[in-house]
């Protein structure tokens, strides 16, 4: 790939944002959309890829409406999608605590929290439907936390000034997903949804330029399957595992979105990745993933490092006046509750100053000593008992006695396939929901907003907007005998055969680790032009290494987890290049994207609204070819761009 990117002047991006007053747009848009009469819905077959919050809620809701649905997932059960792991909570503008929240405030906070790189109309819709998500989940039996009077409890999360987060102990994602999964299984039982677990989508099939199906592989038997339909909904989650170590589950991947990208769907803002400040640090080369410690811990824990570089004393031996509570010092008004990007970057800065703690020096303390003295150990146990237990299991240390060691880790990806207001990608008939799309969080996602977005997309947005495609376009009947299916299947087969034929010396896992290290060091919390250039070279070299030297035992005709993983690594190796390229192209700092060249004298991010107030949507031109950049300008009609300040 050449280092220069071709830029297309004429934008092919039509966001289809409705006009009129912001607060009326969604209602008006729903009215303007065509309807499909209930008797006709069963004539349409929809293919849903993924069963996380986005996929399960979409598949269930569409089947309830009468559409025929086929749903696929990688895991052995839809209930195991990565959404299950979300801990902290889900936002909604219910204003139950009477503390001044409203749809407008949630909208405002999300646009600002995203550092003015999200599409306002989408965010407003998200805030609007948030309240109905809670209604829906409660009706399904999601056991949210409650007050003694029997009404729903809320907490403040991730530094929000109002308490708008609903939660189910430390297992909110699990409970929301089980709610959506139960709705999905009800439709499976009713015969309206065909569920195919242990399947991996390997290609998207376009007929006359419209997404009409997919090619998948049965991961148990190795067989290739063709699925034809009237629309494809990709709900395949985020690409955080391009960094190898992340808080994502091991199966999280970019394969589905990347293959769709190679078929023509634009990929937007791949460099917007979120690094979560409170994770358990890496303990050795064997580390397979990182574990998040809920950020609610920052409500009571105080973050510190030794004042002196290289101080290797045990934490309890370091006297109070030799500790630097750097977040409280640098950000007196937000203190330990600064947003994720700020907290993460500050931890890195302290470690770069050789003040990091623990054996590796790549950690800072999160200390509960003062909270325990203030509120008692029992009170802290009641609040965080399960998290403390989790920490102790992993590290073998007791956080009631010794401060926790934490370090930032990759957690969430704001970038994804570009979608318009209808959640339709640049390929007609291909809709993208949940973390897999790009639209609502801009350059930084606020805590407890991903669950909200996944369910908003699946329960409330897609059931309305899918009609724009189904009723708006003439869809000729298509079967899997169509030549486009044969072509897609043989390309999927050929790629797998090629991986197996290399028979080199290195495992895919070791190449993935090396890629992850490059991405983390040069494309992680702080990025600069030179480093990104090196990363691009390294990624290309690793990709070559993969295709010359990877070794995957076994064959493709049965259950072969090493082969599955190798296929995903091959896609990460192509995608990583786009991520680094996008990071280099975006000559500003915003949200999770921090370019060291673009900072204020006191080290804060410097956004460049004059040149970068746009979403970057990339068009694939071939592996090793420069992709074309299309810009969707972002207009802020309501929330005027300002500098985020947490001082």
């Amino acid at each position, binding site marked *: 790939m050449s280092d220069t990117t071709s830029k297309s002047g004429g934008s092919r991006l039509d966001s289809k944002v409705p006009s009129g007053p912001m607060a009326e747009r969604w209602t008006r848009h729903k009215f303007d959309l065509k309807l499909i009469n209930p008797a006709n819905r069963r004539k349409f077959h929809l293919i849903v890829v993924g069963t996380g919050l986005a996929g399960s809620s979409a598949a269930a809701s569409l089947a309830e409406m009468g559409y025929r649905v086929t749903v696929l997932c990688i895991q052995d059960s839809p209930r*195991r999608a990565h959404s299950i792991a979300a801990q902290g909570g889900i936002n909604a503008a219910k204003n139950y605590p009477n503390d001044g929240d409203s749809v407008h405030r949630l909208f405002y906070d999300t646009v600002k929290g995203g550092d003015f790189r999200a599409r306002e109309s989408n965010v407003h819709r998200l805030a609007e439907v948030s309240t109905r998500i809670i209604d829906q989940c409660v009706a399904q039996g999601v056991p949210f936390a409650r007050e003694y009077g029997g009404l729903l409890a809320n907490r403040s999360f991730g530094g929000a000034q109002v308490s708008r987060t609903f939660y189910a102990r430390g297992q909110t994602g699990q409970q929301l997903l089980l709610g959506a999964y139960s709705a999905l299984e*009800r439709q499976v039982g009713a015969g309206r949804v065909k569920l195919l677990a242990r399947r991996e989508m390997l290609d998207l099939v376009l007929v006359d330029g419209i997404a009409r199906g997919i090619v998948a592989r049965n991961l148990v038997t190795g067989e290739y399957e063709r699925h034809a339909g009237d629309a494809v909904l990709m709900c395949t989650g985020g690409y955080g595992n391009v960094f190898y170590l992340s808080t994502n589950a091991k199966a999280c991947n970019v394969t589905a979105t990347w293959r769709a990208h190679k078929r023509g769907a634009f990929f937007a803002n791949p460099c917007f990745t979120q690094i979560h400040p409170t994770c358990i640090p890496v303990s050795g080369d064997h580390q397979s993933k990182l574990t998040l410690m809920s950020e609610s811990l920052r409500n009571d824990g105080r973050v510190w490092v030794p004042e002196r570089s290289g101080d290797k004393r045990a934490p309890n031996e370091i006297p109070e006046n030799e500790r630097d509570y750097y977040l409280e010092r640098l950000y007196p008004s937000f203190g330990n509750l600064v947003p994720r990007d700020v907290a993460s970057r500050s931890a890195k800065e302290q470690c770069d100053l050789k003040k990091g703690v623990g054996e590796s020096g790549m950690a800072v303390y999160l200390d509960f000593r003062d909270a325990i003295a203030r509120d008692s150990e029992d009170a802290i146990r009641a609040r965080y008992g399960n998290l403390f237990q989790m920490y102790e299991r992993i590290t*073998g240390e007791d956080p009631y006695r010794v401060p926790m060691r934490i370090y930032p880790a990759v957690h969430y990806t704001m970038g994804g396939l570009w979608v318009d207001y209808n959640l339709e990608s640049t390929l007609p008939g291909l809709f993208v929901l949940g973390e897999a799309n790009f639209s609502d969080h801009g350059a930084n996602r606020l805590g407890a907003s991903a669950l909200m977005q996944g369910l908003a997309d699946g329960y409330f947005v897609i059931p309305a907007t899918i009609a724009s495609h189904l009723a708006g376009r003439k869809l000729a009947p298509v079967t899997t005998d169509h030549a486009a299916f044969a072509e897609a299947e043989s390309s999927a087969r050929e790629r797998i055969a090629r991986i197996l034929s290399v028979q080199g010396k290195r495992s895919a896992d070791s190449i993935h680790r090396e890629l992850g290290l490059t991405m983390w060091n040069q494309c992680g919390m702080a990025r600069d032009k030179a480093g990104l250039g090196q990363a691009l070279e390294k990624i290309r070299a690793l990709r070559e290494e993969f295709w010359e030297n990877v070794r995957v035992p076994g064959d493709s005709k049965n259950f072969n987890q090493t082969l599955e993983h190798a296929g995903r690594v091959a896609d990460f190796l192509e995608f990583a290049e786009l991520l680094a390229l996008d990071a280099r192209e975006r000559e500003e700092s915003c949200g999770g994207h921090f370019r060291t060249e673009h900072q204020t004298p006191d080290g804060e991010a410097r956004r460049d609204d004059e040149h970068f107030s746009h979403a970057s949507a990339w068009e694939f031109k071939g592996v090793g070819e420069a992709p074309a950049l299309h810009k969707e300008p972002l207009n802020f009609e309501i929330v005027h761009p300002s500098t985020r300040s947490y001082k």
Partner: protein
Amino acid sequence: MSAPTHAKGLRITLRVWRQSGPSASGAFETHALESVSPDMSFLEMLDVLNESLVGTGKSPISFDHDCREGICGACSLVIDGHAHGPDAETTTCQLHMRHYRDGATITVEPFRANAFPVVRDLVVDRSAFDRIIAAGGFISVNTGSAPEANSLPVGKPLADEAMDNAACIGCGACVAACPNASAMLFVAAKISHLKLLPQGAPERESRALAMVEAMDKEGFGNCTNHYECGAACPKGIPVSSIARMNREFLRASLKSSPPRGAAPEGA
């Protein structure tokens, strides 16, 4: 259970069940591991072993896993006779090697049950659980039709007890631990979760009948009160839920409402 650690790490002998497919006959295979870091998780130890198997062109050991933090329910394994290993309320992915002594021999098998056929090595097919949920493990509420969330107060103790049961991760350890391979704890957890909440009341009887019927159809055994399930459950689902489920089933059978089939047309 913490043990002194070996300077260079632990020497561990693994006896692992290998089985190339559902109908193949399986056998144990022995691997000697030198210098296992005590900070590794059990699954990371298997990763390291698999890396070396790949390096020598041998077939790596298949095992299910995903979140690696005890919530998705994908990991399984019977370790030295215990589903999810020796630690209470701990999934295999959360088990760490610092709990083992230098020189230990560890036997690793799949979750065994007729209703969980082996897919390969340590991977089994637990889709029977999904089919039980599809039969009735839900509250029938279509998207969009829900009333305002706070219109139905639920006492905190009740909500907490529902949550205790809803915490099930569907891993199947209860089945693997039970001498009869019974799925009662799994089914009881879901019946309890939904029964305890007022939202679940309208379908109370049909749910109990349909889920129990589906459970029997899948070929799970009966409960004869060993309560191994409760001991093995990584989420501490209370075994008292089984008694509740039996009461619910009896009550529903007496009222003998017809078992629920598919959700009504247009639902």
